[in-house]
């Protein structure tokens, strides 16, 4: 039976994928065609969503962006045989944008029905967990260390060291916590992976639990991602029935079980200690470190905390060996990074490549520049706490150290593009405003500094005592950077200072005439 794939990913649905699926079903029934509609994840070519695919003898042929109105004409043009049409992009695995990527974490996303366990197994799923169950715990940790995997949430800490720390800690209970509180604007990889490839995350967590000696896992998912929460909960139920989560993981006699915890709308809970507080049901306020969560984490017990992408990379490392993963990458940044192209960009979406690709290649070659064709003025890399880089200096290799050297940070791999209409003083003000809204209030530099920052920037743009206020803003940034407890207050100065450094003219404009 012919198969048609229509993504179920939230982004695809947000531009009409559900309507297209319904229309296809009706139109096919009316034509008496017997076709199976599979709701896959998204390939990550978001500018083409809804992007539908038809299985043909020559592979899967893709069409997009498809609207409800296109369904009839597409069927008339021979959609079921991969027929030619203005929306046809040919065989999907030959689309250069996709074919040139090095997909590891996203290898399966968009290919299958994310909740089809047979497909997951057939494409190599659970091999990593099976292998891990035959290995001593310290060898699993050694494998992860040898792979060079670093925390993908933003900090880039070597994962293997964390694993070993938790493994060696003695306690009656240990935990694995997945931080899926992906709050950075410009990032959506965690969401797409949870919606489009949940089993890889579950398998990665099970491997982590086995290695670290943790029997309980929690996935802390932001409430803005209801589809991800539903998908994960269903996937966990399926995995339990299949026997690879629960009291006896794949018949090994070892226990590991998982549950999803829905967050409640607090950006700072993406910080690991604030997340732990929130998982304990309290205000999501940052804890001072030390003690580190690996030794005293959830409910004071040793806890392995990782981001979605870090844990999802683990099954492939265990299945194919650390060397294969380590072979990818650049300098001290090993493996692949899932970049997310967002904002005013012609071809936005997921680009997974080995570290070392330049910002220019990502933004111009993959992204195609701005969506509206206006000149590209600024790029923010690494979320709301990342630096604004000028559009004419994009030759920066994307890895942890090179970006740090350029005054930025990789963060969670989000890249937001702005055209020449952007007002960088307004962006700097927004960074402070966002920090004021989301600050947990635990430390003064962040709590007071952010509101003070908004006030000072307002005075600068209003032309009030501009030079003195610029000095004040710099001092404020210094205080926040050096004195804040966590990255929220500590890194908010980064977008502010980079805007000041690269776009000073925006802070020196004549004040707008105020209406009487």
């Amino acid at each position, binding site marked *: 039976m012919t198969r048609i794939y229509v993504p179920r990913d*939230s*982004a695809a*649905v*947000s*531009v009409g994928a559900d309507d297209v699926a319904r229309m296809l079903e009706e139109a096919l029934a009316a034509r008496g065609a017997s076709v199976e509609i599979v709701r896959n994840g998204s390939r990550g070519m*978001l*500018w083409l*969503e809804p992007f539908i695919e038809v299985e043909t003898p020559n592979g899967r042929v893709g069409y997009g962006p498809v609207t409800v109105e296109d369904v009839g004409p597409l069927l008339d043009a021979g959609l079921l045989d991969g027929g030619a049409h203005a929306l046809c992009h040919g065989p999907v695995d030959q689309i250069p944008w996709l074919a040139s990527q090095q997909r590891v974490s996203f290898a399966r996303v968009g290919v299958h029905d994310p909740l089809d366990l047979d497909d997951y197994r057939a494409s190599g799923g659970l091999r990593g967990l099976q292998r891990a169950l035959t290995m001593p715990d310290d060898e699993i940790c050694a494998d992860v260390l040898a792979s060079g995997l670093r925390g993908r949430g933003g900090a880039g800490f070597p994962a293997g060291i964390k694993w070993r720390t938790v493994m060696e800690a003695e306690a009656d209970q240990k935990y694995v916590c997945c931080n899926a509180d*992906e*709050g*950075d*604007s*410009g*990032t*959506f990889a*965690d*969401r797409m992976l949870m919606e489009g490839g949940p089993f890889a995350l579950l398998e990665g967590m099970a491997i982590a639990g086995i290695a670290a000696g943790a029997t309980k896992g929690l996935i802390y998912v932001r*409430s*803005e*991602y*209801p589809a991800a929460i539903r998908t994960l909960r269903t996937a966990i139920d399926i995995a339990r029935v299949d026997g690879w989560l629960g009291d006896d993981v794949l018949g090994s006699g070892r226990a590991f079980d998982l549950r999803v*915890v*829905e*967050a*409640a*709308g*607090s*950006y700072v809970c993406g910080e690991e200690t604030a997340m732990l507080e*929130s998982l*304990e*049901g*309290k*205000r*999501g*306020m940052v804890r001072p470190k030390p003690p580190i969560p690996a030794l005293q984490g959830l409910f004071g017990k040793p806890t392995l905390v990782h981001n979605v992408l870090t844990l999802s990379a683990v099954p492939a490392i265990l299945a194919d060996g650390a060397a294969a993963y380590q072979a990818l990458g650049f300098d001290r940044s090993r493996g692949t990074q899932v970049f*997310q*192209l*967002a*904002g*005013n*960009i012609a071809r*936005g*979406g997921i680009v997974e490549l080995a570290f070392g690709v330049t910002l220019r290649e990502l933004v111009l070659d993959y992204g195609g520049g701005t*969506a509206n064709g206006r000149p590209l003025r600024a790029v*923010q890399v690494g979320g*709301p706490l990342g630096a604004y880089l000028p559009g004419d200096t994009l030759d920066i290799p994307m890895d942890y150290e090179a970006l740090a050297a350029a005054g930025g940070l990789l963060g969670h791999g*989000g890249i*937001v*593009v*702005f*055209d020449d209409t*952007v007002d960088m003083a307004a*962006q700097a003000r*927004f960074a402070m405003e*966002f920090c004021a*809204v*989301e600050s947990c209030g635990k430390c003064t530099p962040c709590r007071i500094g952010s509101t003070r920052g908004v006030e000072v920037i307002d005075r600068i743009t209003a032309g009030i005592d501009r030079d003195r206020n610029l000095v004040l803003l710099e001092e404020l940034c210094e205080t926040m950077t050096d004195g804040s407890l966590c990255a929220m207050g500590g890194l908010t100065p980064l977008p502010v200072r980079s805007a000041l450094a690269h776009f000073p003219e925006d802070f020196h404009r004549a004040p707008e005439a105020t209406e009487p």
Partner: protein
Amino acid sequence: MSAYAPGSAEAVRSVLSALPADERLILPALQRLQESFGYIPDGAVDAVADELNVSRAEVVGVLTYYHDLRQTPPPAVVVQVCVAEACQAQGVRELLRGIEGEYAVAVGKRTVAGDVEFDKVYCLGNCALGPAVMVNGHLVGRCDTRRLRTAIEAAR
């Protein structure tokens, strides 16, 4: 929906009795109450504190900390407009002006216009198809005033 008056000790107890042992914590308790009543009613604070054996201050602290938790019933339609950087780059300021023109409301924290509530949020994870808006939990991409109007009508 509970058979008891929202916020009464009986209603709170009845909702919290469904919580598994490892979720008998303040935040999950309040989330569960909000699922049942649509908001955290007056009086629930004392009952939660009593039920979980914690101080009222701790319950109020959690209740006022998280953006999602609300102390008033939600109107028929809740519209969350993403105002974060990626949506700014894709013209959310224009959308906000459009909303102001059409619904006579400056979108802020839970601003109400008739049976529609508009709320500013920071990132809905749809950053390549912005401006992104969520209407009663349904994500709308490439949102303009026309698409928003359609989504609000569908949600009513």
